[in-house]
């Protein structure tokens, strides 16, 4: 199997509004794809649809993840199979402890793969290690999920969870927004440590700055629900310099 993710002609609409209008994308093992694009172009919609949010009417010629039909799976199955979405706006869940819920999530994934529960000791070791990796304050791990976290802390917590769940494909939806410069470096370093031959990423961002830290293999421009341009990492620089107007002109021409 060469592709982790294959998307062919993916369309999504909500209450009759077409938001994604035919997305094509292939992500191979170990690759990092950056997706850029103006506000409202459909980036978060794409990540939500991939993660399984059911608010949309979705159609596609094909969406396969690790050889399986992704759209057939419940959100939890997608996660257990190795898909992870770091949310643009992580939800606060008062009363649900970060740690307990992560343990339940890890065990759900382990059961799915025929493994027993993780031992308390292994779990704690892992928590310590991954927490250190994204420099998440240890008291945050013990609090309710995202409750009262600052914007930056929420984003770190997303990457912490990603590190704990060790996905095959991580989708980072504007993980850099709301991070200060130091936090941006820390989080990027965390992601870079997770990069490997058998782990891919889709990094959604508005800023080429992030892509200096997490250097992508490909950059795509999403515009009005379509990927209208793809290139190497230099494309991000070009966008930074020139904005999106020239893309719009190209599309309209």
């Amino acid at each position, binding site marked *: 199997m060469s592709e982790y993710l294959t998307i062919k002609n993916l369309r999504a609409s909500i209450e009759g509004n077409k938001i994604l209008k035919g997305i094509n994308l292939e992500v191979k093992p170990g690759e990092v794809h950056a997706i850029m694009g103006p506000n409202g172009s459909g980036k978060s919609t794409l990540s939500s649809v991939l993660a*399984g949010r059911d608010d949309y009417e979705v159609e596609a010629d094909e969406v396969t993840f690790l050889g399986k039909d992704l759209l057939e799976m419940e959100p939890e199955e997608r*996660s257990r199979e190795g898909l992870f979405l770091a949310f643009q706006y992580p*939800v606060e869940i*008062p009363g*649900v402890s970060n740690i307990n819920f992560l343990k339940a999530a890890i065990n759900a994934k382990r059961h799915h793969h025929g493994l027993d529960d993780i031992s308390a000791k292994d779990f704690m070791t892992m928590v310590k290690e991954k927490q250190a990796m994204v420099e998440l304050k240890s008291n945050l791990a013990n609090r*309710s*999920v995202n409750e009262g976290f600052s914007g930056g802390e929420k984003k770190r917590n997303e990457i912490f969870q990603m590190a704990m769940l060790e996905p095959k494909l991580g989708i980072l939806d504007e993980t850099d927004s709301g991070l200060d410069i130091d936090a941006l470096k820390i989080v990027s370093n965390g992601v870079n440590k997770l990069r490997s031959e058998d782990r891919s990423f889709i990094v959604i961002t508005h800023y080429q700055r992030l892509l200096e830290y997490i250097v992508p293999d490909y950059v795509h421009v999403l515009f009005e629900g379509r990927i209208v341009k793809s290139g190497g990492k230099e494309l991000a620089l070009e966008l930074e310099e020139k904005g999106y107007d020239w893309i719009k002109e190209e599309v309209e021409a």
Partner: protein
Amino acid sequence: MNKDSFLKQFDNLPEHFAIQAEARAALHNGLNFPTTKNERWKYTRVNTIIDATYAQNQMELSDIDSFKIHKDWKYLTFINGMFSEQWSDQVPDGVEFSSLSNISDSDKGTVLSKMGTLFNLKQDAFPSLNMAYFLDGAYIKVKRNARIETSIVILNISLGESQAINARNLIHVEQGAEVKFVHQFEGQGNAGAFTNSVCEIFVDDNAKADYYLIEDEGSETSAITNTNVSQKKDSRFTIVTVTKSGKLIRNNIHLSITEPGCESNMMGVYFTDGNQHVDNQTYADHQDHGCNSNELYKGVMADRSTGVFNGKIMVHKAAQQTNAFQSNQNILLSDKATINTKPELEIYADDVKCSHGCTIGQLDEEAMFYLQSRGLGKEAAHRLLVQAFAQDVIDTIDLVELKEDVEEFIDSKFS
């Protein structure tokens, strides 16, 4: 409602106290069971209770352990309303217990001076019904300044079909004493049963009493509980009601906060499904100054179940510097479930802080998706969110084993 044929089923039961005869007479004469025309019974119809036929089953219990939440607690067990010495423990030092059917002459005077005084027997039909026909019950006195380390459990077990029980208890916590009670209602093979409970609790100066009402008689039974409490100076009383099962449940709690410096807590959780109906009525009666009452009820309601919450806070003119808070929050898991929730404030003092609020909502879909996107199945995500919702009420249970029991109950209910 056929009151006469209902009462006739009980008229041959023995009487232990002269006041029982008075109560019987009152019921046979003008006193009627409430209908939905009565404001406080607007959403709860008792016809099914009154029109049913009941039994007095003579049954033996084969094992008690399955009912015990924690075996080290001291159990006072009542089977079909009758005290069971065999299945009961000695009460700890500092506590006196006697069963009402077998009360000593010296205690009888004390009991009689208190029994029924917290109720209006001319008006309230169910407390009167209990007074008229109770067969037995617990009289418990916690002696002055005694600190009782182990919890005392009044375990009421309803055995056999259509069993009717009038469970009656009188608790007196003397000055400076500290104690925790669990009042647990259980059932076995008791479809069609009805339990009508009265518990009168007197909390003297500086005393601290916790009272945990755990209702689990089964899905085919109905219960009406009447818990009336009188608090004296600087005392603290906490009641936590956990409704685990029951077809029709009505809980009436009335706190008379009669002297200054009291703290009162009324907490509750209910998890309903099927055609269940759970009605919680509370009354915090602030009669004197400088008292705090706190109230939080939470419900999670599924299927076609119905719920009622009516919380009244009464602040008399003399009750200056009263702080009274009340909140009722509900999650409806189905669009066929309903809840009628109503706060009632009646305030005659001017220097008071009172607040009340109620919410009705669904489980947060964003949170559901977030949890699922991390690999948790729908049920597990559901369970976590329900657990989280109820947690602040559960956290007010100051008994580790009971708290765990309720958490496990939620776990199994939502899986």
